[in-house]
């Protein structure tokens, strides 16, 4: 009887040690799994554009930077927090709107969709940009 109790207690101790080892294994596995993990920044008025290359493919550098700043201002003035934003589909040239660059922006994690229109004018090489954002 006493021997049974000792064997029982020994196994409880072994199980406790193994559970600690299991937790360490899980932590290590998780750490080694995150090499290319997608960063999940906290929600803010300045979310990262995950596929900025789509927009940079079309807009001059100054227009791109201004567009991003205007989107950030829009989010701030409307008190909208987001972790990231993604251009859905492609950038299209809207002839009806005087040849503006239009695209759809998806804000995550809320899954809110916004339509952005970028109108550029070029006066002797000096580029001016106007950005319209609507839901």
């Amino acid at each position: 009887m006493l021997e049974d109790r000792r064997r029982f207690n020994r196994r409880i101790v072994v199980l406790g040690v193994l559970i600690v080892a299991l937790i360490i294994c899980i932590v290590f596995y998780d750490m080694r799994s995150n090499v290319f993990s997608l960063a999940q920044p906290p929600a803010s008025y300045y979310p990262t554009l995950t596929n900025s290359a789509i927009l940079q493919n079309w807009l001059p550098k100054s227009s791109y930077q201004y567009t991003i700043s205007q989107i950030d201002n829009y989010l701030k003035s409307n008190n909208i927090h987001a972790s990231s934003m993604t251009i859905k589909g492609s950038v299209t040239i809207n002839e009806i709107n005087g040849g503006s660059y239009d695209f759809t922006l998806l804000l995550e994690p809320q899954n809110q969709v916004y339509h952005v229109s970028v109108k550029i004018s070029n006066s002797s090489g000096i580029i001016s940009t106007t950005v319209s954002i609507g839901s």
Partner: protein
Amino acid sequence: MDNNSQPPTQYHLSILLLNLVIAVVVGVCAVLIFLTISGYGSLQLDLPNNVSVLINNHVITSNSFKMRPGNYQIIVTSPLINPYEENLNIGLFRTTVFKPNLQQRSANAIASSVIGAIGTGGGAPQPGPVQWFNNNTWFVGVVSPGPLYLAMYYDNTQQQWAVGYYDVAGYPSDLSKIPVNVATYIENLEAQYAGG
């Protein structure tokens, strides 16, 4: 009933159950250790030189590496191609070769990203018909309203596109400073449009 008075069969049953739990935990630990050390797939990038690769927004500089199984967003960019985006699945112990069908960047996108617009009210430049020269490092197109002749070239030093000829204030407009074949093509175009 205190513990000392428990019947032996109850202890035996508990020990048996504990043995089982211990075996399961040992098994899970072993699997996790194995996966931590060896649980990878591999990815090989078959891409042209001078492209930038982002995987889940991490800049990639190697052409071959190990990755954990799962789905990854991969974006390939370069001034010479349309941006390419794909969701890639990496399988455990499997090698995935990534060889996307990259397309030459359109003249519309190149012109848009450099000059942005035709004047103050002309909207996005959409040059056409487009003629490519010198291994696709130059192109010429006609933009409206105008017509205006636009020649652009890829500056290999700066690794970006630039205006070679555009007869608008603020841009180079000297045909003698661009390659002869490109200048000749523009002169022919001008003569063609002038002749109606």
